[in-house]
């Protein structure tokens, strides 16, 4: 199934990646090649096969609900492109 311009716009929106309209065609053709490659799976019969989401059969380990690390708020806030003493700052979203 070939991708269309409409698909690219939708993917750009879902992935939150702006795509310049002049690049759309080349992106479309390269994505199409990849989709063709992965579509070769479709001819395999997978009835009654359990999906494998993980390499090892392990269960989620649990631990005691105790504090393991000290609060590093300031270290992490410092990494933000824009922050104050308590928050990361983003453009206003509520008028």
């Amino acid at each position: 199934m070939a991708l269309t311009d409409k698909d690219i716009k939708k993917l750009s929106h879902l992935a939150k990646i702006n795509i310049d309209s002049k690049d759309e065609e080349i992106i479309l053709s390269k994505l199409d090649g990849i989709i063709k490659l992965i579509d070769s799976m479709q001819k395999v019969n997978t009835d009654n096969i359990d999906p494998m989401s993980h390499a090892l059969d392990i269960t989620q380990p649990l631990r005691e609900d105790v504090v393991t690390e000290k609060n590093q708020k300031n270290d992490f806030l410092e990494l933000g492109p824009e922050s104050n003493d308590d928050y990361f700052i983003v453009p206003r979203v509520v008028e």
Partner: protein
Amino acid sequence: MKNLSLKELNLGLSSKKFSSEELTRFFLNEIKTFNPKINAFITLDEEKSLQQARDADKRISQDNMNELTGIPIAQKDIFCAKGWKTTCGSKMLDNFYSPYDSKVIELFNQSGAVNLGKTNMDEFAMGSSNETSYYGKVRNPWNLDYVPGGSSGGSAAAVASGMAPAATATDTGGSIRQPASLCGLTGLKPTYGLVSRFGMIAFASSLDQAGPIAKSAEDCALMLKVMAAHDTRDSTSIKQNIPDYLKSLDNPIKGKTIGLPKEFFNDDLNQEVKIVLEQVIDSYQKMGVNFKEISLSNSHLSIPVYYVIAPAEASSNLSRYDGVKFGYRAKEFKDLEEMYLKTREQGFGEEVKRRILVGTYVLSAGYYDAYYLKAQKIRRLIADDFKNAFKECDLILAPSCPSTAFKIGDKTEDPVSMYMQDMYTISTNLAGLPAISSPAGFINKMPVGFQLIGNYFDEATILNFTHQYQRITDWHQKTPEAAV
């Protein structure tokens, strides 16, 4: 100091032939000479490295050393290291100084190893040629017009050119074994879950695994001994006893069986690579190893399955790069939505964006069953093939790559041709199995490797067989003239 093994470096340090500071200065000097040509290192911090070296010298003088104390190790720039710039080869993280150590870095620090610097890599480990790095391409020390492989191309080129004795790397679809093969080195991808992924920047979480790239199986054994450890901060880290990989290097291999997958040794296999592999088989036969044909009948589906699962997981993992909490933020935008869109447009390179878009597509409403679920089912078939094969053999022999290194620029315009580089390595990532690439010869003066795949957590047998091969051959001791 240049071509010494890790064991010889350890001996030199313990016998006070040279200090860790002298050794570290020696390698920093080599980097000054060769890195401008090869571009294997992207971040150096001489002061930090030398301080670690002086600390190691103190430990050595107090007789408190282990195998890697005082030895400089190159660290792939995917591992967070406190106070070090950690970029994952991306503009997105160009301003990111990690506030904490990854488990792998923590283990090397505890062992007293010196962090020699951070190595170049394909952006977010997505690539097979090291041409997608924001910091420029890496050149293959065997011929500077050729790629070193990827994504751990910086680590491989650093070791191959003698700028570092050994390096860390990661492998999601072949990113340790392929560059090791293309640069004439030994590279081991351990079983999924053996090395902690804590602080290792995520690409495809169900496939990512860290391991060493070094000059020999013995050096890889030493590196893995430090890297393998249970870690409660990685929920997929396995709790089990780590064997002493060095002790089993000389175990007898006579009478053991290596499987040859008929799907890999067919007419599609490059004839020159085939000749090299036949010589490897011959060497093992001389050591009394038996060979048996086995079948991995679904292996041809590995690449399509991988290019669903890996981009799907990547599109989720890389959603964290949004210009809010760390990393790059676009300069101009009119609202929050546009900030996201432009930050991710400008911060990611072409290949990373392509994979995020593919991942978004296969996970989007209406396509999940046809792609992601389908891929997970075939993943099971691929893993079951290995399970059945290991009933008949101890290890599996395979090519590492379809060919030797290709020229820089040769595959950049056609992503699918680049993806084919990993056709012999990807199935083990999907199954979660350990595998090594070891040097096996040269084709037109460029190195070529072979791959040994082992059963789950059987790194000891892989290293044992590789070491025995390296005892009777000297391919792993060859060094490129371009750099020496």
